[in-house]
Structures are given as structure tokens and as C-alpha cells.
């Protein structure tokens, strides 16, 4: 399928990563990673969440400092101090969530901080700015006007502007740049992807490209070489011409099931009665979702980023304005207009961004735990401190939360213990009927993960319905009774995953990408 002219293998690499290691608390994000990028080639990077892709990219633009190992650019070892420094050696990144200032023009964004002859005597020369920016836009054949306000462009157009911005490094460094593309296709329409690919191919005439994507077919289509990452290291280097997507799936997953880790034997049969019924749920990024969850059932939702599963969960919790659809909780309509309505109806939500949405770091464990259900510890309008403390003590003991006391600021606890507090917040409520878990084990170490899994089993065993978004497919499969697969905002499959009869992850992967 590849009609590229393969660059000579002997060419010395423009960028080489040697034994790069980076440890975050509880997690080894990079574990001696080795790879190289040669001039004028497109290198594909694939790996599951947590395989080390983001940390690698951040290290390459100076946003993360590796603990050991080296980054070698054109034969010279560099310690990158930040994006500006990385740019000065010719490495630029097109961020997934875009790094353009919205309220200024395209030309200003492309030249930001390096206007050159666009500014003379402190005054902007708009015509010159536009010309300079146009040079970069022309390199990728973009038709975007250099004078347009950036926030008037579509996402795809802005992505092209970012590429143009990175290409401006060419003149500044007098070298062919290395362009890192982080999940560039995740929110693009199919036609836009084609345009992007055309441009990546043009780009290869003057630069090296590192292409990161969840979509294996795309990686195979565009890359000259592909690295498969797992657990912070490169597990395979493949030639796209010689493999297909199924081969890659096996390489990606490649680990044995660890049944006890997930407390498989604690998985019980759900009850027969339907707890939540969703018909034609419609919200930004998620269309016509229909499904049911039974009491005591764990329903996993699988999908890559941008598949719409996060939106689906937030919508059910009333946290997305404008969500519509027929949603019945125990046969009664569930309002989708505010989190409060959801809480009152017995729906709980554990957000993925624990630090910004899950806990109030400066408040105590006690306050964080009783936050959503202050009513249960109130006497009239006043919080009954004694009752609150007693309740919290009970749960701290039950969940084995390791905290010096209930008055400790939650921000000082480890991630796992914080997450247990967040879970306890919902378990405290006797009327909890549905708990939505958005990446509940994100950032936790193995031991803490296992404890969280145990809690989820316990919750389901007590009859609560659980909607689970997992970091990894493995987790979703192991924990769920059934798995919904979403892609591009739609549900594409629904598979049974009973104890002892878990479906093949490859099948799910195929429905996802």
C-alpha cells in the first residue's frame, strides 16, 4: 500500500531518543525508550493510553524533564528547557488541543514572538506580517487568509495554521524541522483527514514528521515506519507495508489477563430490572445513543478520545448544557439540565479530572466526602459536625482510606486515597442508584487500582448500576458485564462480557477505530 520512496536506512537520524526514562509518582511513564527519526520521513507512534506517548512527546518539546536517558538532535545531545528552546533546535509540536491564541490573526500566531521584519521600529507592518505568514501557509498549500482572526477558522484550518507555525522554524533554525503531530486526526472529518494526509506528504519534502494516532489504519497509511509502544518502552518497530491492523492490535494489547487484579470472581449476575434506560440521547459530540443498564450491572463504554463517550457520561449527569433525549431512571424521567437534579435522583459522577473537578484540594477529607450529600448530616440548615465526622470515620475505615484524620486537606493524600474519598462521597448516599465512573483509575498505581476495582465490585454487588469509562480496554473488559463501543459519536457495538467469557479485545478495537 505504500508508494513512498523509502529513505536510505543509512541516513543519520535527525532526532534520536536513547534510553529515555521518566517516573511519575506511582507510575513509570517512560522505561528506557529508544527510537529515532530520520530526515524526511514520517514516523508513526501507536500505543494504548499510558503506553508513554504523551510523556515522550512532552519530553521532546521540553515540557517534561526525563529522569535519565538522552535526546540527541542532529548528533548533539540536548536538554530541552521548554517549547521555545525545543523550537530553537528545530522541534515543533502541533498540540492535540491546539496552541493558538484565539483572538489574534493567523499571521500573528504563526509569527508570535518572532515577527522579524513584520515589526519595524516597534510598529506592526501588517502587509509584511501577512507576507511572512503566507510563506509558511504556502508550504502546506493552505488557503487560509493570514489576516483572518484565528477563532474564525474551523478546527482543521487551525491545525494547518499550527503546522505552518511549526514550519516557520525552518527559516529560524536553518534546518529542516521535526514536526510532532499529536493525535491530529482525532476530531477531523474523513475529507479533512485526506487533506491533512496530503499535507503531511508535502511536509515530508522539507521536514521529518512524528505522527501519533489512535487510528491504526491511518498510521499505517501515512507512516514510513511505525513504533509500537507499551508500558513506556518500544515493543516493536514495524514496516507498514508488511503488517495490517490486526497485527498491530495484537502488538498493542499483548499482555496476559490478570484476573485477580480485577477481582473477577467477585463479578455477580446483575438483577433483571432495568435501572437506566436511554433513548436517542443527543448532545454535542454524541448522537442518538440508546442503551440500558440493569441494577447491579457494570456497563463499560469503550472508545478512543473523541468518540463521544465522555460527552455521553457528562450529559447523563446533567453537566452538558443542551443535552436531549428520553432518559428513564427506574422508570421515571431523569432531568438532564443540572448536576443537582442528577444527584437528587440518585446519580453519582466521578470525573476524570480528579484534581480540577473531583476534589477541592484545600478542603478536608471530611468536607470532600460529605459535599454532595450535606443534607444527610444536617440538622436544619446547620451541618451537624459530630454526625458528619462519625459518618466519615465509618467510611474511612470501610474503604481503608489512608489519611491521618478526617481533617487532613485532601490534596496531601495520594491519588488512590483521594479517589477513594471521591467514591465514598457517592457511596455515602443510601439512595445511590447509578454511578458514572469517568476513568476512575487514571493516574493510580497498581495497588490502588486494585482497591478501586474491589470497591466497584462491591457497589455493583449492592445493586447499584455502574457506567464505566476505562483508561484501557483491558480494564473495561475485565470490570464490565457488557461493553458498549463508541466511535465518532455513535454506538457501534455492544458485547456481552460475562465472567469467564470475556470477548476478544481485538474485536472491540476494530469497532473502536
Amino acid at each position, binding site marked *: 500500500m505504500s508508494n513512498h520512496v523509502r529513505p536510505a536506512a543509512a541516513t543519520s537520524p535527525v532526532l534520536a531518543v536513547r534510553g529515555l526514562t521518566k517516573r511519575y509518582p506511582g507510575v513509570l511513564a517512560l522505561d528506557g525508550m529508544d527510537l529515532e527519526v530520520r530526515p524526511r520521513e514520517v514516523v508513526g507512534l501507536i500505543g494504548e493510553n499510558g503506553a508513554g506517548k504523551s510523556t515522550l512527546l512532552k519530553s521532546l518539546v521540553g515540557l517534561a524533564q526525563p529522569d535519565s536517558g538522552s535526546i540527541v538532535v542532529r548528533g548533539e545531545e540536548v536538554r530541552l528547557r521548554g517549547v521555545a528552546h525545543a523550537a530553537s533546535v528545530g522541534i515543533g509540536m502541533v498540540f492535540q488541543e491546539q496552541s493558538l491564541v484565539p483572538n489574534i490573526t493567523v499571521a500573528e500566531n504563526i509569527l508570535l514572538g518572532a515577527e522579524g521584519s513584520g515589526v519595524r521600529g516597534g510598529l506592526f507592518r501588517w502587509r509584511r506580517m501577512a507576507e511572512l505568514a503566507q510563506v509558511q501557509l504556502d508550504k502546506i498549500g493552505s488557503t487560509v487568509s493570514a489576516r483572518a482572526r484565528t477563532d474564525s477558522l474551523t478546527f482543521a484550518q487551525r491545525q494547518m495554521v499550527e503546522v505552518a507555525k511549526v514550519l516557520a522554524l525552518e527559516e529560524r533554525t536553518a534546518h529542516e524541522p521535526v514536526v510532532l503531530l499529536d493525535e491530529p486526526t482525532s476530531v477531523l472529518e474523513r475529507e479533512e483527514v485526506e487533506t491533512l494526509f496530503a499535507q503531511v506528504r508535502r511536509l515530508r519534502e522539507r521536514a521529518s514528521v512524528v505522527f501519533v494516532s489512535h487510528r491504526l489504519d491511518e498510521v499505517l497509511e501515512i507512516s514510513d515506519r511505525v513504533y509500537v509502544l507499551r508500558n513506556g518502552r518500544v515493543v516493536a518497530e514495524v514496516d507498514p507495508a508488511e503488517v495490517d491492523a490486526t497485527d498491530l492490535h495484537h502488538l498493542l494489547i499483548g499482555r496476559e489477563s490478570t484476573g485477580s487484579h480485577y477481582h473477577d470472581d467477585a463479578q455477580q449476575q446483575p438483577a433483571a430490572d432495568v435501572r437506566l434506560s436511554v433513548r436517542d440521547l443527543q448532545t454535542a459530540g454524541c448522537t442518538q445513543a440508546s442503551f440500558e443498564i440493569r441494577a447491579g450491572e457494570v456497563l463499560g463504554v469503550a472508545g478512543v478520545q473523541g468518540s463521544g463517550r465522555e460527552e455521553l457520561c457528562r450529559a447523563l449527569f446533567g453537566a452538558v448544557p443542551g443535552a436531549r433525549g428520553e432518559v428513564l431512571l427506574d422508570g421515571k424521567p431523569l432531568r438532564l439540565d443540572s448536576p443537582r437534579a442528577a444527584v437528587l435522583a440518585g446519580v453519582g459522577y466521578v470525573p476524570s479530572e480528579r484534581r480540577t473537578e473531583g476534589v477541592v484540594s484545600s478542603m478536608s477529607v471530611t468536607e470532600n466526602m460529605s459535599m454532595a450529600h450535606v443534607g444527610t448530616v444536617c440538622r436544619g440548615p446547620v451541618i451537624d459536625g459530630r454526625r458528619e465526622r462519625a459518618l466519615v470515620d465509618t467510611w474511612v475505615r470501610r474503604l481503608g482510606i489512608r489519611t491521618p484524620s478526617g481533617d487532613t486537606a485532601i490534596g496531601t493524600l495520594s*491519588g488512590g486515597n483521594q479517589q477513594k474519598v471521591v467514591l465514598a462521597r457517592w457511596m455515602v448516599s443510601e439512595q445511590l442508584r447509578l454511578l458514572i465512573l469517568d476513568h476512575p483509575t487514571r493516574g493510580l498505581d497498581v495497588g490502588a487500582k486494585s482497591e478501586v476495582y474491589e470497591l466497584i465490585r462491591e457497589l455493583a454487588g449492592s445493586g447499584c448500576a455502574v457506567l464505566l469509562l476505562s483508561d484501557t480496554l483491558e480494564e473495561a473488559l475485565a470490570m464490565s458485564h457488557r461493553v458498549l463501543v463508541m466511535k465518532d459519536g455513535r454506538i457501534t457495538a455492544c458485547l456481552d462480557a460475562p465472567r469467564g467469557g470475556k470477548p476478544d479485545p481485538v474485536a472491540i478495537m476494530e469497532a473502536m477505530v
Partner: protein
Amino acid sequence: MAGDTAPHAPTRTLEPAPLAGAPAPGAGGGNGDAPAATSGRARATRSADVVQTRASLIALAVLVVVFAAISPQFRTAGNLQQIIDAAAVLAVLATGITFVLMLGAIDLSLPGVIGACAMTVSLLVANSRNTQDLGLLGIALTILLGAAFGLLSGVLSTRLRIPTFMTTLGMSAIGLGIATILFAGVRPVVLDESLGAWASHRIAGFTVMSLIAVAAVALGWAIQRWTRIGRYAAAIGGAEDIVLLSGVPVARYKTLAFGVAGAFYGLGAVMLTARLGSGVVEAGAGTDFAAITAAVIGGTLLSGGRGGVLQSMIGVLALTVLANGLILTGVSPYVQQAVQGVIVVLAVAVATWPVRRRLGVVK
């Protein structure tokens, strides 16, 4: 205010737990946003900008039409001149504060800076207290003093990382202190005839001061449009972390933006002094909130990056027309203040209506 925390933002948003999704030096959003939501938000932003300017213009037009319908005096050419004259000082002050608001910072230093500058100019030109007679040079020195105050606010905010709310409030107190020392119990009456003529001499029906104000606003607009200070101020207000990542010395340009603002306050103080005929310590009382209100009504939002000098002028005219019209239409002085408050809140509500956050949280 958002601008003050933003320098730390890159470390916060760019180094989440290793497994936490993609790095996100995105446009100020939480990194929990799905990309699809990002593009949706950008569309909302665009229409919000247009809607805001349009809403502000409509609010102004409605005020003008209503007052013109009720009051024959409002419709006269003389009253138009009066409104322009009355708006002159606020226009210059609002031009200055726009630079600060664009950053996403706030400036409460106006009462003190204006007090100190008003005393300074009245003591530097021919006056009843001393024998100084520097004329235009005195005015220029006063504007420089204003700029110095602004630069100091900026330096304190950026280098010591103190929120601008606090530094500028402190700067106001310092300015008032200096003004009180300069005042020394006797008000200096301005005897300089050319400065006095700013308020009384008319060219083509407008006072000299109004024409100076128009020139100052035009200069402010040019600074915003063509200089690094103006352009970077907008960019910093739009996404400070990204500007920082691009290698722009953000602290320097923030400080300079405060300096520009201070120079405009200095000019405003000179105009106030010309109008009042003597150096008054409290000349700037309440101007901070008037200027901020004008800017916000015009669509220059406190969150930064939005609006601009010309937008702020819509707000200045709206506020001035409101004060003028309420008197001319015979609204009782006992209820004017309340009516004014209600209309201002309505105008701000209309102007900021399209700006919604994910959960609608407003602080």
C-alpha cells in the same frame, strides 16, 4: 484577574499525571475538554464577540432613541456637544484601562494616580500656590508621572506575582498619599490660561478638551493596533500560557501595558484639572469603577482578550448619555441612582450574555 494566575498555568496544565490524556496548552480551557467541544466553543466565541459589540451598540442606540423621544432638549446640537464634552475625561481613562483589561488584569489605581497627577499638574503650571510656570512641559511631566505609576503597578504585579487587584489598590493609596502631601491644606488654583482654555475655548463648537480626547482615543487605538504592546496585550489576554510558550517576554509587555494605561490616566488628570480649575485630591474618586463599567458595557471583558479601545468608547458614550438623559427627562434625583444602576446591570448582562462556561460558573 485570570491573567495573574496564568503564568503558572503551563506547569499546571502541561504536567498532569502521566496518563492523563494529551498535553493541553489549549486556549484556557480545562484539559478535560474533548476536542470536539473545543471547536464548538471557538464558534461560540466568535459569535460572542460580534454579538457583544452589537449588543453594546444597540444598548447605546436604545438609550439615545428613548431619551430623544421623551426630551426635546436632548435632541439639540448643544446637548450633543455637552455629551461629547462630558464624555471626554472618561473616554481617556477608559482608553487607558482597556489596555489593562485586555490583559485580563484589573486596575483600581485610578483614584490615587489621578489625585497625584492632578495635584502635580496644578503645581507645575502657573498656579496660586507657587511660582512654577512650566506650561506644556508641566503637562508632559504629569503624563510621565502617570506612566511611572502604571509601570510600578505592572512591575509589582509581574515580578512579585501579586494580583493586580491588590497592587493597583495599593498604588491608589500611595497616589492619594502623595496627593495629600502636595495639597498641604491649600488648593492650588490653576492660573495657566492655555490649560484653562482646554475647558472653555471652543473649536467648531467642541471644547479643546473634547478634541484632545478624540486625539488620545485615536492614539490609544493606534497603539492597540500597531504596536507590540497593544498586540501582545490582546494575545496575553487571549491565552497567556501560549504566548509565554512562544518565547514572548510576557512580564515585560504586561508592565508596558500598565505603563501606557498610566499615561492615559495622567492625561485624564490634566483634563480633569483643567475642567475643575484647580488641583483637587479627590478628582479621581469613583473613576476606576466608571472606567471599568464603561469598558465592560462596551464589550471589553474582565476576562481579557476581548474588546478594545473603540468598544470601550461605546460604553463611555452609553454611560454619559445615560447620566445626561436621566436629568433632561426629568427623572427625580431621588431615584436616578437606582435607575442608573439597573440600566448599567442590564447593559452588562446583555453584553456578556453569550459568554458561557462549561458549567456556567461565574466568579
